[in-house]
């Protein structure tokens, strides 16, 4: 429909070189804004991480973050919860996205899931923490219902403000983010590929195993990485759910910043932030590499 309405892709760009510097000028406001208001804070985190309170350069803060046991514990639980919830969120999110995409494009189900995904993925934080306390807290509705059915979560050692409880809450915003991220890749699977596979006698399983999954693999892996970064960065949920009882890197940063303990705590807090930036940097580099592979199959 829209293809018919669209004017033929103008040769315009081919005449004027598409990468001409004048065209790039149009990106300056956007790039400059991100540079100042995203790059600015990151700059001060990095420079503060590498200096002592008087401003002299030092590596002591960074060394402290990778040697002191409380920070190491924070890193391990942050990495653990991010990894586990990224994988769970990616698997269920991919299935949910596929289930929704195989419905009619105008079905209410699609609208409900896509709008709800946006709200839950980006807005998660505090409301989700409260919702899970209401559901699975000591007197939560689900806790009581399960107890009625003979399953006593709290007798079995479950607590909503534990790492498991926090992970369960994280999945609630990881799945919607996966639905948003993987949707375009799933839509990019050409029906002809399935038809060709079926004509060659492939079962549905063989089609997924030998055609669809290999094509989707880079996109799936890339989205999982973003989910990992998202969970690693998340703090609002933990803040509202546990008020700081679970050692996570963001919790450690926040308490170092409120710094009523030691004089140079603020710089250690910034050093922890620097460590987080490095982890995120590695994730982004891997994501970029995967993105390049994923675009190989993108329909043109």
């Amino acid at each position, binding site marked *: 429909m829209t293809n018919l309405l669209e*004017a033929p892709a103008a040769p315009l760009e081919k005449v004027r070189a598409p990468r001409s510097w004048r065209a790039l000028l149009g990106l300056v406001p956007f790039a400059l804004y991100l540079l100042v208001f995203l790059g600015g804070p990151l700059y001060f985190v990095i420079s503060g991480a590498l200096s002592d309170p008087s401003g002299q350069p030092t590596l002591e803060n960074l060394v402290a973050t990778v040697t002191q046991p409380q920070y190491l514990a924070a890193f391990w639980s942050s990495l653990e919860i991010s990894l586990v919830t990224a994988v769970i969120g990616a698997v269920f999110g991919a299935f949910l996205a596929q289930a929704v995409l195989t419905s009619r494009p105008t079905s209410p189900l699609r*609208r409900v899931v896509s709008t709800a995904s946006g709200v839950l993925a980006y807005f998660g934080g*505090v*409301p989700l923490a409260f*919702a899970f306390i209401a559901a699975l807290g000591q007197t939560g509705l689900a806790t009581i219902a399960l107890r009625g059915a003979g399953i006593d979560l709290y007798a079995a050692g479950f607590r909503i403000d534990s790492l498991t409880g926090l992970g369960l809450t994280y999945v609630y915003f990881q799945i919607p983010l996966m639905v948003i991220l993987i949707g375009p890749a799933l839509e990019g699977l050409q029906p002809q590929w399935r038809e060709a596979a079926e004509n060659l006698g492939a079962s549905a399983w063989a089609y997924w195993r030998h055609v669809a999954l290999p094509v989707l693999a880079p996109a799936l892996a890339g989205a999982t990485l973003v989910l990992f970064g998202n969970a690693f960065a998340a703090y*609002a949920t933990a803040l509202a759910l546990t008020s700081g009882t679970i050692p996570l890197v963001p919790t450690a*940063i926040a308490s170092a910043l409120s710094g009523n303990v030691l004089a140079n705590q603020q710089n250690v807090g910034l050093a922890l932030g620097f460590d987080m930036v490095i982890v995120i940097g590695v994730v982004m580099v891997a994501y970029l590499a995967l993105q390049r592979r994923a675009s190989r199959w993108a329909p043109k």
Partner: protein
Amino acid sequence: MGAQVRGRRWRVVVLGLAAVYFVVPLLSSLEFSLRKPGGGYGVANYLAIATDPVLLEALTVSLEIAVITAVLVLVLVVPTAVWVRLRLPSVAGLLETATILPIVVPPVVMAAGIAFVQANLNTPLFNALFSSPISALTPFYVVLAVPFAYRAVDNGLAAVPLRTLVEAARNLGAGLPTALLRVVLPAIRSAVLGSAFLTLALVLGEVVIARILLYTNTFPVAVVVVGQSQAGVSVALTLASLVLTWLLLLLVSFAGGRRRVS
């Protein structure tokens, strides 16, 4: 035939599991927020916002931040997305990656950097910036809102014959700003409204930066503080803001869909 039935069966399982996982916590919130201290149910927690001056003031501040943020985000994102589609399709992938950045850059790290500036750089410019939550928080909320706004606007642009619209407008004598404002913007209004409402949701939910920078008179921080003494009120307020945002988005989605069908 057999494959088709099996296909439907796994969809029902997936959708059923998702429905249970996603609906139960929301229903529990609703039930919890309606509980009355002495037992029984009532809507008192939802009315608390009207009688609590602290919450009311915080909500006003956050709504002001939300409106300014939404406008700034659109001013930044719409022309850039249009420009990339028309003149720089080769950098579309790069830009999409750039918009992933604010999702993965931890708000707590941004807050740490800003807190450092707030504490250590005492120039008139920074002092003016940090004097009110509106001027201090808005610029950074714009950064946080850019990823989904860019995605939503770009999807909206993909669904309209952008090049035709812009060229027609320019042939009729419109400059690029006029074409953007009077032709492109109305054509993608559901995407624009969608990103504005998501921005609203973000501002009403962002607690980390506001709390670390000690702007306690913003809605999300005030809600968390209230939650320590009156859990019911904060559950009611967060649930109401979540559901209201979602309903607004759903409304926009249906309105946009109906227009396209007709």
